[in-house]
């Protein structure tokens, strides 16, 4: 189906700008321009949302720090043998957040850990949200309007989803992590592959609700194919659910890494927030009152998760016509 599916559910995405000199432009460039304008408008509206900007900026700062970390962190300081301080130094001049059990600066570790943690958080979320959304929309759509063939597809998808769904997430992740070679990729896969069914379920429920609305029938009466209905009508209407899931999943994924470590499935040699937490735990820092080793990684995860939520919230405010103009 070649139906155009406006994938960016931007605000007021169409140009009510009056008859412009459109002559001489190819439809393709027009479409491109339309999309660009929609994006611009989206950006403008987004920029007006203060909380959203705050979230975005803090994410960007964290991301930039993580990316440029090699420039200002001496990597030998992150090795066990090259640790610059004494073990468990409390926060102070040289080490603003103190040191860990090897004498490495906790601040350095946090910044460096962002590299892995953000990767895990983003990729795992991406994998599970896109998988879940795709499965949910497809199953919901074909289940309600696909004809017999579609229904078969839908029920297969749903069976698979249901089947994944009943597998206890954590247990499955543990098994996956145990079978696959240790590493960030495995963690991403283990999380991504086990978390999606919940998203799929939610999205499917929402899809079914949307599919029952007359405007979907109108779209079909207009000749819109499956892709059109799913992309143009269903997707924007499941976006709130997807956004809510996404914001939750980013934190979940980052934490899942440390949870897997807690259960003995992590890779203690990588530096990530989850691994830091786990290292803090195994070193007994919690009951020893070495708070500077435990609190920062936890807070870092929370800050990222909150920033994501603020962004998600702002996007939602921009794309939901009824919320427009508020907040």
């Amino acid at each position, binding site marked *: 189906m070649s139906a155009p599916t406006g994938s960016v559910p931007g605000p007021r995405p169409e140009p009510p700008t009056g008859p412009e000199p459109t002559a001489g432009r190819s439809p393709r460039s027009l479409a491109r321009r339309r999309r660009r304008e929609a994006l611009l408008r989206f950006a403008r509206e987004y920029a007006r949302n203060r909380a959203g900007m705050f979230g975005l900026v803090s994410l960007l700062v964290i991301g930039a720090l993580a990316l440029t970390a090699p420039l200002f962190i001496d990597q030998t300081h992150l090795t*066990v043998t090259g640790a610059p301080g004494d073990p468990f130094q409390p926060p102070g001049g040289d080490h603003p957040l103190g040191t860990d*059990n090897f004498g490495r600066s906790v601040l350095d570790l946090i910044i460096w850990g962002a590299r892995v943690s953000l990767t895990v958080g983003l990729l795992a979320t991406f994998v599970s949200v896109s998988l879940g959304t795709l499965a949910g929309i497809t199953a919901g759509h074909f289940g309600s309007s696909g004809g017999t063939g579609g229904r078969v597809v839908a029920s297969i998808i749903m069976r698979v989803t249901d089947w994944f769904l009943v597998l206890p997430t954590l247990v499955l992740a543990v098994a996956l992590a145990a079978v696959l070679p*240790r590493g960030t990729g495995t963690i991403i896969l283990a999380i991504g592959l086990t978390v999606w069914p919940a998203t799929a379920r939610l999205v499917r429920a929402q899809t079914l609700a949307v599919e029952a609305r007359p405007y979907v029938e109108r779209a079909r009466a207009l000749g819109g194919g499956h892709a059109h209905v799913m992309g143009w009508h269903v997707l924007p209407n499941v976006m709130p659910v997807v956004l809510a899931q996404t914001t939750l999943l980013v934190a979940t994924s980052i934490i899942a890494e440390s949870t897997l470590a807690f259960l003995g499935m992590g890779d*203690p*040699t990588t530096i990530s927030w989850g691994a830091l937490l786990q290292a803090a735990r195994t070193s*007994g820092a*919690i*009951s*020893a009152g070495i708070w500077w080793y435990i609190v920062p990684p936890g807070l870092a995860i929370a800050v990222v998760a909150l920033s994501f939520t603020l962004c998600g919230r702002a996007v939602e405010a921009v794309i939901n016509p009824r919320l427009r103009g508020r907040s």
Partner: protein
Amino acid sequence: QEGDGSRLTVAIAQQVDSFNPFTAQLAVTTNILRHVYDRLVTIDPETNGPAPSLAEGWETSEDGLTWTFDLRDDVYFSDGEQLTADDVAWTFTTIMENDAAAIASGNYVSGFEKVTAEDDRTVVIELDEPQATMTALNVPIVPRHVWEPILEEEGDAFSEYTGDDLPTVGSGPFVLTEHSRGEHIMLRANPDHWRGAPGFDELYFRYYSEKDAAVEALRSGEVSFVYELTDAQITSLESVEDIAVNIADGKRFQAFTINPGAVTQDGEEFGDGHPALEDLTLRQAIVKAIDNEEIVRQGSNGQAVAAGGYIPPRYSDFHWSPEGEEAILDFDPDAANEMLDEAGYERGDDGVRVSPDGDRLELRMFVHSDRPDNVQAGLVIAERLADVGIEIDNRTVDPGILSDALYDAEYDLIFTGWTVNPDPDYVLSIHTCGALPTEPGTMQGDAYFCDEEYDELYEAQLAEYDPEKRAELIHRLQEVLYREAVVNVLTYPNILEAYRTDQIEDLQLEPAEGGNIWGQDGYWAWWSAQPAETSGSPTGGPSTGAVIGIGVGALVLVVAGAFLFFRRRSTMEDRE
């Protein structure tokens, strides 16, 4: 309610596999059963040597094949029956004859020919071959009149019998009275114990699956004793009033072994160890490149002793440490580099050496991910070996993956560690050629080590009944191990424990100097522990605590509820 007596609470984490003394294997259960059933011989906390227990004395025949133990005559089981030589003989014979009953202690009787009760007080054990470990038979002696019917009834299913008929009937200083899986285990003192009544009326083991929670419980007084602490925890507990920490000499060693090329007993090669590691020079260079002191510092935060020989210094008779000339493998990266240069291991462009056969020195190192000290040591080793041009592929993995790699010989370096008993025979036996696998995957030990000299020395020490001569042989065994650089001991981690002095007055360490409390080879600690004067029962508080806790919870709820209610009241009017 019977909790009026004094109680000693221990935080434990490991689950109970079985209270069947024939099958129980996990550390927690063997530790507990040690207080329930006496052994023939125990260990003297002062001398670290064998001490009389059920057996008042023992003697050996000339050929060393017959051992005669004289039993005490004042030992009664907790059901009032007297313990006789018949019980002892039956216990040993059962283990020898019944596979299911051999699960826990089969290794002690493998060299036994026959065990007989000469009379009520005398047990005679006949051996196939001399066996120097006869005074270290860690076999619980059980009442025949209780276990024989069970054995008959269970038959083949005996191995699944978990001994959950409580209270147990035993001769030890405590009687196991209660077990609530995953919650607690209760032992009551046996006031009629032949050695004298224990100081505490109750020994209460409480489950804490999270160590930090256990430490907090120690702080709050809910438990009297915790063990297996970390350095950070010890450091912070040290300064706490009413808490004493005990840093004991380690019984364990932490080591890594090098795959020297795995072979079966028939000489069939298998696995995929790095071929260059067959070269002794390379192995020695690897060991020289590693600073055990640094591993003590970084890997164990100082709570360990840098190792030389195989057996920890705690067993001063058997411990051996390379001195002077012998210390050929001391940390010396320059020398290591030199050795490698000389042996033709050229550095490649990336700084990684290549063996004379053209194999790049990239070695897979397997580390237990669940052992923080191993993980940390692994990091140090990886970084240090880089200094001598060896690249380490650090595989910090699950024990399962690690053991697969070990048994399939698909590793280059691998971490290992053993807790060494007062008699080191077993940990030595695993490096004999006889421990090599009969076919791939069936190895007994933890390294594919096989050395004729070693095997000879091993046989000799096993047959040597003279302690000093035996110690000498064992020293030489360790020297061989050290030289061959296959089994490389890194550190002896300290044992870190803490207890509340306002609950426990005084207890016996084993050994008395630098000894530990938990996991003693005897039952000295809990038998000797005396309740402190001020000892409030550690769990005496909860009911008041409960009242306070629930009160506070309720208060919070009420306040929150009221807040919400009034807030709603005030805003309800003006909202649409």
